[in-house]
């Protein structure tokens, strides 16, 4: 992926594919609307969709931020203390096994129908891949570097921050990439179980009213958001990991 624009090229190809399937498969519109219909909706309801996109995007970004922060914190805490690790890691797994979808209704009751429940949802989905990948990376530091650092009287925290942490950045990157890809779903599920704004809300409504074209319009915007987010994260990681071998 030399080129940050390539995902958009792919998107174009996929739209072409979609066009072909929609036109040739004979699937009715309420199952799979045609791209041109969706485009028409996008044009017609531009302002409306934009407004809801803003809501969802801010939820996604906040969720990604908090989720990454929380995930990194968990990983670092687990690394700092084996005791924490022993107690925390089953809780983390537990938090994942708890299907967000199933407890979403409860989360809405706990955190309200506003923004916070969506962010909590996104965080719940995001933080685990980050924590797991980052922790694995922190743990797998080249022992020689640790020994060298030890001979240099590095404090435990210093070893963590200045040896393990940079060494684990590639692994952290893997986690972050997954997080960026799943962040939108967190926000959408949150909106789905209870909300009055956002792309998820738009989709729910459109779905209930069998306005499949509008639902796909929202879906399309969401995908564009997700791809953009992912491309940005990728770009950032490429900058940050200039030193890591990457043999493609």
């Amino acid at each position, binding site marked *: 992926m030399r080129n940050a624009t390539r995902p958009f090229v792919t998107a174009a190809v996929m739209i072409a594919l979609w066009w072909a399937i929609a036109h040739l498969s004979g*699937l*009715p*519109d*309420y*199952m799979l609307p045609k791209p041109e219909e969706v485009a028409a909706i996008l044009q017609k309801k531009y302002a409306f969709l934009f407004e809801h996109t803003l809501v969802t995007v801010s939820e996604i970004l906040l969720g990604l931020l908090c989720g990454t922060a929380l995930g990194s914190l968990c990983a670092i805490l687990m690394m700092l203390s084996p005791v924490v690790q022993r107690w925390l890691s089953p809780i983390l797994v537990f938090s994942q096994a708890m299907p967000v979808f199933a407890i979403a*209704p409860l989360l*809405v*009751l706990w955190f*309200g*129908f506003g923004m916070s429940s969506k962010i909590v949802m996104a965080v719940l989905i995001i933080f685990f891949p980050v924590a797991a990948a980052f922790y694995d990376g922190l743990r797998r530091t080249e022992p020689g570097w640790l020994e060298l650092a030890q001979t240099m009287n590095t404090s435990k925290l210093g070893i963590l921050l200045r040896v393990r942490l940079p060494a684990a950045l590639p692994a952290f990157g893997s986690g972050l990439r997954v997080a960026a890809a799943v962040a939108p779903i967190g926000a959408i599920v949150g*909106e*789905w*179980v*209870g*909300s*009055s704004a956002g792309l998820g*809300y738009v989709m*729910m*409504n459109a*779905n*209930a*009213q*069998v*306005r*499949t074209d509008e639902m796909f319009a929202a879906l399309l915007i969401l995908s564009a958001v997700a791809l953009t987010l992912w491309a940005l994260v990728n770009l950032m990681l490429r900058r940050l990991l200039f030193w890591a071998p990457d043999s493609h």
Partner: protein
Amino acid sequence: AMAADKVTVLLDWFVNPNQAPLFVAKYIGAYEKYGLDVELIPPADPNLPPRLLAAGKADLAISYQIQLSILRDQGLPLKRVATLIDTPLNSLTTISSTGIESLADFKGKKIGVSISGVENALVSAMIGTAGLSLDDVELINVNFQNVPALMAKRVDGAIGSYRNFEVTELKSRGLTPVVFYPEENGVPIYDELIVLANDDNIDNPKIVRFVKAMQEATIYLLNHPDEMWEAFIAEFPELDNDLNKTAWQLTQPRYAKNPFLLDTQRYDEMQKFLVEKGVIDKPQKVEEIAVELPH
């Protein structure tokens, strides 16, 4: 004997007493009698069954009259072939602690909805009788979580609350529900639950046989509600609780005694209402959306 004809029926929602006649027909052997092998499939997303029916993935689907108008408006090739519950069950419900006593009191309050469009129209009509418009309230998607949302005070009222279920539930939790009925507040009377079939399949004789089985079951259920309750919870032990038991009793009078019957005028008026509320673009002729099968 001849091999029974397979019939796949998509339910509207999880299994619940509203669908009792469909299960009773199984318990009393009515399906067998009419040479049918019926499979009842509950969806988790109530929006799914009509679409799958339209796509030919099932023979019949349970849905709602108002929903049908919208589906037809969007071009789904579906028609009503029978009625399961022929009075509205829906209501706009609140609890006494909110202090709301009349529809006018909803001004500036939050109302939970789950099926936007339909329910927006209902709310609009109902509060319209008190001189309010949708701009005077805040609508929040509660995704069918009416009771918890009300109890947790996340909303002040909720449309989509069934009088046999949610209202009962609220009572059982020691709260005093305040119920506003659509048909008493500006909404034409309508059938709550109906059976849909695909246009292409409408002449399939097994549908008539299915509705006949439904009819026999409804009558049997009316005569033997307790016996049938036992059979029901024997099949679904997870549903054996007070709420369902009460709902079972409360729903008895609401099943359509003759599921074949079609009240053309009722459908006509609802079409007009929905056009007026902007839910659908233009009214369809009744024969386009509903048929009364020969019986």
